[in-house]
């Protein structure tokens, strides 16, 4: 039976294929439309430039009434990303609205990379360096970017 969640995911998929946001790709697994893999490319002219960051998005039958579970598979160093890849982002938590489709979610995560929210630290070291020692922070981000190429292979 086609549920609301599956119908919506097909709609999201068509949308992502027909009108892909810059620097973002994503698709469901061949075997399971409820589980997606995505890649966010680090935005140009930032410390994140050149990085290829893999994520998984796991949807429940309650999507889009409930947010998917989104996490980075690539190791990250960012004030709002936990060591296990989980992301602290308001629209994925208490500000979730079904208005956000997969394109919008990934676009928000992409903007979070360069625009962290110091008010909700998920990685205290990254948070501290971001506010106190931006040069060192950027160096650590570059390391993550290079690491992301190794993860690729």
């Amino acid at each position: 039976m086609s549920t609301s969640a599956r119908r919506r995911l097909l709609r999201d998929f068509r949308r992502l294929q027909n009108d892909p946001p810059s620097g973002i790709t994503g698709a469901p697994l061949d075997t399971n439309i409820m589980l997606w893999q995505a890649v966010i490319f680090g935005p140009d002219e930032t410390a994140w430039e050149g990085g290829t960051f893999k994520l998984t998005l796991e949807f429940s039958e309650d999507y889009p009434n409930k947010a998917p579970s989104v996490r980075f598979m690539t190791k990250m160093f960012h004030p709002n990303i936990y060591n296990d890849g989980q992301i602290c982002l308001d629209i994925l938590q208490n500000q979730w609205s079904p208005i956000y489709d997969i394109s919008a979610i990934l676009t928000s995560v992409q903007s979070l990379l360069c625009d962290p929210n110091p008010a909700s630290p998920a990685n205290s070291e990254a948070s501290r360096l971001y506010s106190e020692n931006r040069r060192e922070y950027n160096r650590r981000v570059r390391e993550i970017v290079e690491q992301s190429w190794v993860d690729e292979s």
Partner: protein
Amino acid sequence: MSELSSSEPPSEPLSEPPSEPPSEPPSEPPSEPPSPTGPFVSDLFPFPSHLLSTQNYSTSTSHFVAQLNLLSETYSSIRIVKGDGSCFYRSFLYGLITILAEPENESERLRIIEYVQKSIITLEEQGYDPLIMEGFQEELLELLTSTIPSSRSGSLNLHTTLTDPHGPSQMSTWYCRPLCSSYIKSHPETFTPFLLSYPSLDSYCKSEIEPSSIESSEISIQAIVKAFGVKVGVEYLDGHDEEKVVRHVFGEGLEINMLYRPGHYDLIYKK
């Protein structure tokens, strides 16, 4: 994920404040809001005996029991609605769809179908993405068109459809929110004075109306009854006064009645 509270107090009353606004905290917590894991909308229970037997109202320190007894002169049954931040919208939709399924309300059902069919145009004018919104609109139209005034057994099927966790009522419940936002944004003269600290109606709606976990406010209730052209009567069970219960009436048209316990709405039905 943070745990979300569904027990926010209502915001300041809109244009027609009651003689006693229900914004003060009650003399005791009246009840636990219904569990967020219960059914979306319960079966019909007798009122007020169901509440009296499931809630620990203390007669010595509050007027809740006296107020319930006053209300029992008018109302005889209640449906408990899930307390997940959408209780008002869910009560509204459930109440609306079931009333529209009554044969005598066929012309209203057709009018509201037409309103929902045209809603995408208004939403697009207000900056919403029609591709996303169509998914929600289709589910609401499915509810409105599948609930053709029906045989007696129909009401049972309707309850099943309206409470199906993966059925059309879930997306339809949320669709009430952008319909509400869209009405607010297209009536700035009415709503701008109530923006509180928000710089624009857009940002107000984005933060206070559209997120699934945000409770309704008197602003959103005013907007939704006008958008749909129906009436919502709210009885405020606030425990303030043993001799009266404040009733707010929003909008005009077919009537949906709700019981408000601080932080939560349920559906109530007249005798």
